[in-house]
């Protein structure tokens, strides 16, 4: 481990005369450079030296595209070598920066490293497969689709935690949204009514969280965990007693139509993901941008963040701390509820028990990996959607990597992230701490 770890192990707090001045307390650690170096060496050994000899083929255009691009064919071994050497170079640069100037690597470095690593990994996986050919367009489009509920869930987390309320109940909000969307859309024969109802249901779950966390000052993590169980039990119970009893009447919501924007949707790769989505898909992009602008560019966002970072100061300035928290948590629930409607109105057109399948927890991870920032959370969610999608593709094309390890990847990455080995994620200072006005 790093230098900070060794200096922090000392059990008894002795005043340490040699310690760093408090002003430079954000220490430049060896964590990131060393982690990058280890990953680069792993990449060099597996993707480079032990890389497959074949050719990996990536289809770029799909049939309905505006214009066709030829498929990309790369020699797996050569590109594995080149890419892993780039990784080694990047890691070496970070190490040199730390050793020579005691400076942290530039911010682009971890991002570039991640992208190169993912590309090298992809080539390695595809190159070693039985059928070394996948459609890149399909892979990316599928990733975005799988990421939609995760994005909404992580946005809910961002909204709640920026205001200082820990939201473990994302899973419950997604599930509640999915159930209500299916029920209301079936009864009213209108998927848009289902979409609206999903937002209301998510908000209701959130309001229970807010009530217990803010009014009754119950530990927020406890409420979140218990709410997940409650929603899971409620939806499971009602599914069996109501929906299964009369599936035609109560569990056939129909789907939200895919809105295809002409011409633009024909652009290869990015066309389908940006211009060929359901309403929920378009809402996702809107929500990410609106929440980002709202949180970081408006007076409202400044107040929310103040409440999450230092509620006493915010209160002193006349901001109603608990009211802000309450409405933020409610809004977060509504956002997650919309995300939940994706399961029953877009992905498949019926509800089943536990349809959210732990995506709420992945959303939580995405929020952390995205450093409590809507845009960061969006890309982290895309990464998880990508891993999810790759997992199913890998089983189809038949690679040596067991699909279970692909499925494990998001969780491992998150553990690394919260352990501070990949970047540094820090929650809002007052996150999870109830505020009682004096």
């Amino acid at each position, binding site marked *: 481990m790093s230098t900070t770890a060794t200096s922090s192990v000392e059990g008894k707090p002795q005043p340490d005369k040699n310690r760093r001045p408090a002003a430079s307390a954000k220490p430049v650690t060896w964590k990131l450079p060393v982690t990058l170096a280890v990953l680069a060496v792993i990449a060099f050994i597996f993707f480079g030296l032990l890389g497959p000899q074949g050719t990996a083929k990536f289809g770029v255009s799909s049939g309905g595209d505006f214009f066709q691009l030829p498929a990309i064919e790369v020699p797996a071994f050569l590109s594995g070598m080149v890419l892993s050497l780039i990784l080694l170079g990047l890691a070496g640069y970070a190490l040199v920066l730390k050793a020579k100037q005691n400076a942290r690597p530039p911010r682009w470095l971890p991002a570039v490293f991640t992208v190169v690593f993912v590309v090298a990994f992809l080539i390695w996986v595809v190159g070693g497969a039985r059928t070394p050919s996948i459609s890149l367009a399909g892979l990316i489009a599928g990733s975005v689709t799988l990421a939609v509920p995760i994005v909404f869930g992580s946005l809910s987390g961002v909204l709640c935690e920026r205001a200082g309320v820990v939201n473990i109940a994302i899973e419950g909000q997604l599930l509640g949204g999915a159930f209500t969307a299916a029920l209301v859309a079936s009864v009213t024969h209108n998927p848009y009514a289902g979409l609206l109802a999903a937002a209301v249901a998510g908000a209701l779950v959130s309001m229970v969280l807010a009530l217990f966390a803010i009014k009754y000052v119950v530990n927020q993590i406890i409420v979140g*965990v218990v709410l997940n169980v409650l929603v899971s039990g409620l939806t499971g119970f009602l599914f069996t007693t109501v929906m299964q009893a009369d599936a035609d009447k109560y569990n056939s919501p129909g789907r939200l139509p895919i809105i295809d924007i002409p011409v633009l949707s024909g652009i290869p790769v990015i066309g389908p993901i940006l211009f060929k989505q359901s309403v929920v898909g378009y809402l996702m992009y809107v929500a990410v941008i609106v929440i980002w602008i709202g949180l970081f560019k408006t007076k409202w966002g400044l107040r929310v963040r103040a409440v999450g970072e230092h509620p006493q100061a915010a209160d002193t300035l006349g901001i109603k701390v608990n009211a802000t928290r309450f409405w933020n948590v409610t809004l977060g629930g509504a956002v997650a509820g919309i995300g939940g409607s994706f399961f029953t109105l877009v992905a498949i057109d019926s509800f089943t028990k536990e349809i959210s399948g732990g995506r709420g927890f992945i959303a939580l*991870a995405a929020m952390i990996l995205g450093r409590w920032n809507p845009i960061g959370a969006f890309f982290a969610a895309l990464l998880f959607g990508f891993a999810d999608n790759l997992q199913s593709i890998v089983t189809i094309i038949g690679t040596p990597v067991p699909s279970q390890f692909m499925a494990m990847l998001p969780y491992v990455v998150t553990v690394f992230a919260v352990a501070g080995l990949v970047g540094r994620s820090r929650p809002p200072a007052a996150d999870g*701490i109830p505020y009682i*006005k004096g």
Partner: protein
Amino acid sequence: MSENTEPRPAAVPDPDRIPAAAQATEVEPEPLEDDADFVVALDTAGGAHQPSAVPVTAQSGSLPGAPEEESLMRKIFTGNGIVTILAVLLALVLGGLLIAATDKVVGTTAGYLFARPSDFLAAVWSAATSSYVALFQGAVFNPHGTGVAGQFAPLMETLTIATPLITAGLGVALAFRAGLFNIGAQGQIIMAGILASWVGFALHLPLGLHLLLVLVAGVVGGAVWGGIVGVLKARTGAHEVIVTIMFNYIALYFLRYLLDTPAFQRPGETTPISPILDPNAVYPLLFGSQYRLHVGFLLAIAATVFVSWLLNRSTIGFEFRAVGANPKAALTAGINVSRATILVMTIAGGLAGLAGVAQVAGTEKVLTDGVAATYGFDAITVALLGRSSPWGTFAAGLLFGAFRAGAVQMQIQTGTPIDIVLVVQSLIVLFIAAPPLVRAIFGLNPRKKKAATAGKTKQAVTTGGAA
């Protein structure tokens, strides 16, 4: 003292993002002369620190680190038993209403509610009670059973199901007491199950030794999986809630992978199921082959005694509680917080591991990907209901075991889905966590206003520390 000497550097907020008021206290005059200064400095910097994530009794109204809340606390605790009973009652009533609301007879009688309301009420009553009667018969005593043995079979089943709930619940409760939120019992049970079952079916050892090895392997599996979380928390400050949730998934996918490999798959089978454990490797049955109850239940009792001793009588347990109550004070008092964190997560994992052993060597006798069922998550509610005390957890484990066992019977007899148990369980925990709510519902809150204002002013003093 700045935060550099904290054992959990990343848990501490970034100094450059702490608002100015808090940061000012950080640039203390230094070097500090003696320990007294040091204590004061710690206190003033206190506003920037996060209090323990988990209050010892996850109860509302008790902000962590509020020293003057003793009278308020006493008030809460005097009404404790009543609140618990009322919470269970309230949850059962709400569950009953939910059952009634989806009942067909109730639906039809509601059609002529105003013509004959008695029909409707009778239907509501019968729908709810018949489910609960079936639940009771499936959980405790079945008068229609054949002979005394048959009549008490449900009770034995309850104890069987309670066994992993109790041990895993103890793991969660122990971590609570040290201020750690162990959501990871699920993963710890799985890891224990993997190791214990492998020792159980792959090795062939004499009687006694084999079971002992299975037990040790399981406990070690759980302890290591929990211990890693402790190390990550102590060394890097990674939040244990996130890490344990992620570890649950990692363990689950690891289990699925193993069940896909020849080493773990039953020969000649393509389904993901392991070979049956050796007869030498399984827990002996307690009351003969007519019940599933096994020696694991005795181990659960022993584990409860152990945790009770550990928390109340041992030095380590005192350290755990001190760290849980106030990590800063514990650190100042010379307690090694890192060590306590790692140790408590290891023991918690070991206890959850015991639940994993009970599953593979007792109840199931094979390893499947449903080895942990939902015991790991139920363990959290068990520990919360038991207020993190060992014997409370034991009792809560029995109650939830009864729910689980009875729900199966209830579904068979009345068609009420098992999920109602989840609803009732979570409602109980929610209500118990918020006594003011329960008392308000039952109109037991005569001094509510006074208590609330008193609590407010007192707590404001402590929460306002950073300003």
